[in-house]
């Protein structure tokens, strides 16, 4: 447990990209910083989106301000987070049922926002991206790409830590410390052992996405957000190597993004009540919609294996005049509650999007600095993240890369220059834990030692273990064995395993047919049949619904 006598300059609540980015920015400006997350990094909306490195083109027509932000951040991220980003390029395609007039307006809006937009001959578009719908009548190339939100957040956490920030996962804020109108710290409860503690800080930043609504209530202020659920489907392999968008007014299921070994179609937009934000099911109607629209972008999706379905919640600041949420600017909302509500020492940073996490962090940190009277410039746009540092040995290594095994190349993709810290050389180090995603024993050990891994779900987010075709069937038990060896979950290995497999099943169940059904059946034979695993044990701390009734009540009362 952290030393409660320390007074931090800043407490950042929320382990998503924005929170991790804010912690990094604060730490870089010399502030004594702590980052607090109730579950694991990227457990909220950060880990549940497209992984699209927007060029801004999607917003060029409807929201020029967001578009300009996106292209600026796009260029910055390609530089500071190059190991998290893949510069795939993107296409906006016009299908026969769409109007080419929109394409003309779209191109001119892109150019106005500073986004390059090359009109391509449909034949050229098919040559560049053979999986695209061959019936297309128009195509525009834009600088879209893909970004791995797990890597991005981990790299920001590492950077914050390197600059002296403390990191605390599995600690939930259950209340605030106050002195008069001033927030002076937070009360925490450990999600592992239920113990409570207090942390004092001069300024507290809430970077909690949709959960910021609840945190604001705890602080006695009201931030009107509403949750909009977005569902997505993950396919078993890369169908496309360029991002494919529909060139029309933004609508459901009109973006297909290649990400790591898979591709993702999304998304939908449905308003949901607050009591469902921790427990979202993707409905068969949403699966139907995503497939039906996805097939129009790339007909191959009609017969490509679907690995799983998932949904995230957009943390949009509510605009009651629009029930669908689509035409709302996803602009950044940085609230100084001293000015707005008379509560000193409390800031909410919300709105925005994964693409603009760094800019959001910058705005929040600028405000923190003003409050603390610190005058140091933001350097997050210039200094590369850990893993993306320029590497003198880079060229040299590239020449020898031909001799690297697939798992070494894959690990380098995941950890960038930090992959050099992964042991190699012995058969035991190089043995694979996750074969689908090529994760070695040494990479898992590195993650356990360096990347705040306490259970299998953390391990998955840091390494991709269990994210591949078999969805953990072959690797979860191996990963659990390695965790146990590190004495990280001796008591709970079986619960951990059961929870991990259930979490995988949760995403597979909405698309459980064909090969995915075979896989699930095989997995259940292994874990329930052969290993005798069941899930009747205690609920694991990573389940948001873990809070007991009394705990919920206690939280409400504060």
């Amino acid at each position, binding site marked *: 447990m952290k030393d409660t006598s320390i007074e931090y300059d800043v407490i950042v609540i929320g382990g998503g990209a924005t929170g991790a980015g804010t912690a990094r920015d604060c730490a870089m400006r010399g502030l004594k910083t702590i980052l607090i997350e109730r579950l694991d990094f990227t457990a909220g909306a950060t880990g549940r989106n497209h992984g699209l490195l927007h060029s801004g083109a999607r917003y060029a027509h409807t929201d020029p301000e967001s578009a300009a932000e996106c292209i600026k951040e796009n260029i910055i991220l390609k530089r500071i987070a190059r190991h998290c980003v893949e510069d795939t390029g993107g296409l906006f395609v016009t299908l026969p049922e769409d109007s080419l007039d929109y394409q003309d307006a779209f191109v001119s809006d892109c150019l106005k926002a500073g986004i390059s937009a090359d009109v391509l001959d449909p034949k050229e578009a098919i040559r560049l991206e053979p999986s695209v719908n061959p019936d297309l009548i128009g195509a525009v190339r834009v600088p879209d790409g893909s970004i791995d939100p797990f890597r991005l957040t981990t790299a920001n956490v590492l950077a914050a830590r390197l600059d002296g920030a403390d990191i605390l996962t599995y600690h939930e804020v259950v209340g605030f410390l106050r002195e008069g109108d001033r927030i002076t710290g937070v009360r925490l409860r450990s999600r592992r052992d239920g113990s409570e503690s207090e942390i004092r800080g001069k300024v507290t930043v809430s970077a909690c996405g949709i959960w910021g609504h609840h945190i604001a209530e705890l602080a006695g202020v009201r931030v009107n957000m509403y949750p909009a659920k977005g569902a997505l489907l993950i396919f078993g*392999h890369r169908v496309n190597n360029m991002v494919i968008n529909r060139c029309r007014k933004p609508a459901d299921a009109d973006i297909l993004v290649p990400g*790591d070994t898979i591709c993702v179609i999304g998304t939908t937009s449905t308003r949901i009540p607050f009591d469902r934000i921790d427990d979202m099911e993707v409905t068969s109607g949403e699966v139907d919609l995503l497939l*039906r629209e996805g097939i129009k972008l790339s007909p191959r999706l009609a*017969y490509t294996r679907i690995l799983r379905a998932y949904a995230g919640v957009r943390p949009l600041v509510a605009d009651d005049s629009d029930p669908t949420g689509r035409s709302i600017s996803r602009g950044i909302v940085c609230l100084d509650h001293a000015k707005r509500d008379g509560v000193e020492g409390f800031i909410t940073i919300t709105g925005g999007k994964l693409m603009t996490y760094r800019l959001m962090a910058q705005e929040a940190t600028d405000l923190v600095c003003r409050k603390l009277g610190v005058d140091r410039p933001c350097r997050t746009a210039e200094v590369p993240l850990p893993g993306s540092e320029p590497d003198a040995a880079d060229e040299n290594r590239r020449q020898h890369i031909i001799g690297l095994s*697939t798992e070494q*190349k894959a690990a380098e993709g995941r950890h960038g220059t930090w992959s050099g810290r992964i042991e190699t050389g012995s058969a035991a180090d190089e043995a694979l834990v996750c074969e689908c995603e090529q994760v070695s024993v040494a990479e898992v050990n590195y993650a356990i030692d360096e990347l705040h891994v306490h259970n299998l779900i953390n391990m998955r987010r840091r390494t991709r273990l269990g994210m591949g*075709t078999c969805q953990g069937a*072959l690797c979860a038990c191996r990963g659990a064995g390695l965790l146990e060896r590190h004495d990280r979950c001796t008591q709970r290995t079986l619960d951990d395993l059961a929870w991990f497999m259930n979490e995988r099943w949760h995403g597979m169940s909405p698309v459980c047919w064909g*090969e995915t059904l075979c896989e699930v059946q095989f997995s259940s034979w292994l874990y329930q049949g052969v290993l005798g695993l069941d899930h009747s044990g205690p609920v694991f701390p990573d389940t948001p619904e873990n809070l007991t009734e009394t705990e919920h009540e206690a939280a409400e009362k504060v």
Partner: protein
Amino acid sequence: MNLQEQNISDNNFESCIKCTICTVYCPVTAVNPDYPGPKQAGPDGERYRLKRPYFYDEALKYCLNCKRCEVACPNDVKIGDIIQAARIKYASHGPSLRDTMLANTDFMGQFATRLAPVVNFSLGLKPVKYLMDKVLRIDDHRTFPKYSGTRFESWFRKKAEAAQESFTKHVSYFHGCYVNYNYPQLGKDLVTVMNALGYGVRLLDREKCCGVAKIANRCIDEATRDGENNLRAIREAVGRGDEVLATSSTCCFTMRDEYPHLLHLDNHDVRDHIMLATLFIYRLLDEGKARIAFRKDYRKKIAYHTPCHMEKLGWTIFSTSLLQMIPGVDFIKLDSHCCGIAGTYGFKKENYAYSQGIGAPLFDQIRASGCDFVACDCETCKWQIEMSAGVPVLNPISVLADAIDIEETRRLNGVS
């Protein structure tokens, strides 16, 4: 929800449920720790190669293309094809001089048969073997098959062809490089047996190598040209009503399955007409369309070895059943186990130790069996077993040619 009727992927790679049975059955994985195994080299690696060709792993060259992974797979994933297709598409450098020489069995055969005594003598000399080992990296432990002074095709034209047209029923024979350049006796045996059963034998028009060695050594353009030529000749034969018989399980397998899967040659119209001679003969006898009589004095202890491609074809039962029909035969079926040579694979210096390691349990079982000889439908298995187990190997067709009472069989089938 009927949006996805089925999942379709190249070589069914997405049908892999990661059960890992293929890796358990892979003969290379058992002896070579540098080989990632069929599951990783195949469907797992394919996802990464689709991401970027950069993820291609050069260790895929250790795959010997035995297809035992495909036989083991419960979900019909064409694992061996995925691996071979990846080697063809992504390997960073083209075939070496050695690989090209080993691959061009036709070219080398045409050259060597002209100078057979000199070539055979030279290939047996220690200094020559030493040089080939050092310069070409062809392992000096390897015994080269002897070249024949007379090609099978030349013998056939001179001595056999004229008599064949007197038959009313015919088969066409794909003899392959081995019979043509190294061991014409097997071809002669086939003519003897088929004639006794009442069938005349025809050759294909300008047969070329089936291409298996070219595919394995990534000489794909040449293999495709040869394949197109062979399919033309086979179509011609099938058009005149002949079945096309082979005496090599690998040639047969290549033309049936590797042509469409790896060379993208459409053979669906003639594929079912390409078959192993033992299958054709077994069916003739089984359906009562021919009869066979055996010598009374034939006494042999025969151990049958199942070549990997025979396992893949699923036709072992036809060869073993024919051998077991012979009254004086004491028959042993060896465990189905790769002999390790895999065509040109075992000739390469970097593979030699693995090649012998893979075959070791088979050689032990053969030596312990006390058999007079091993019967086997593949010529490269023959080289490996003869060299490594020290026991002679005969094709089942040669066994039949020796064991049948030719005069009586001809009489039973109305051949004058």
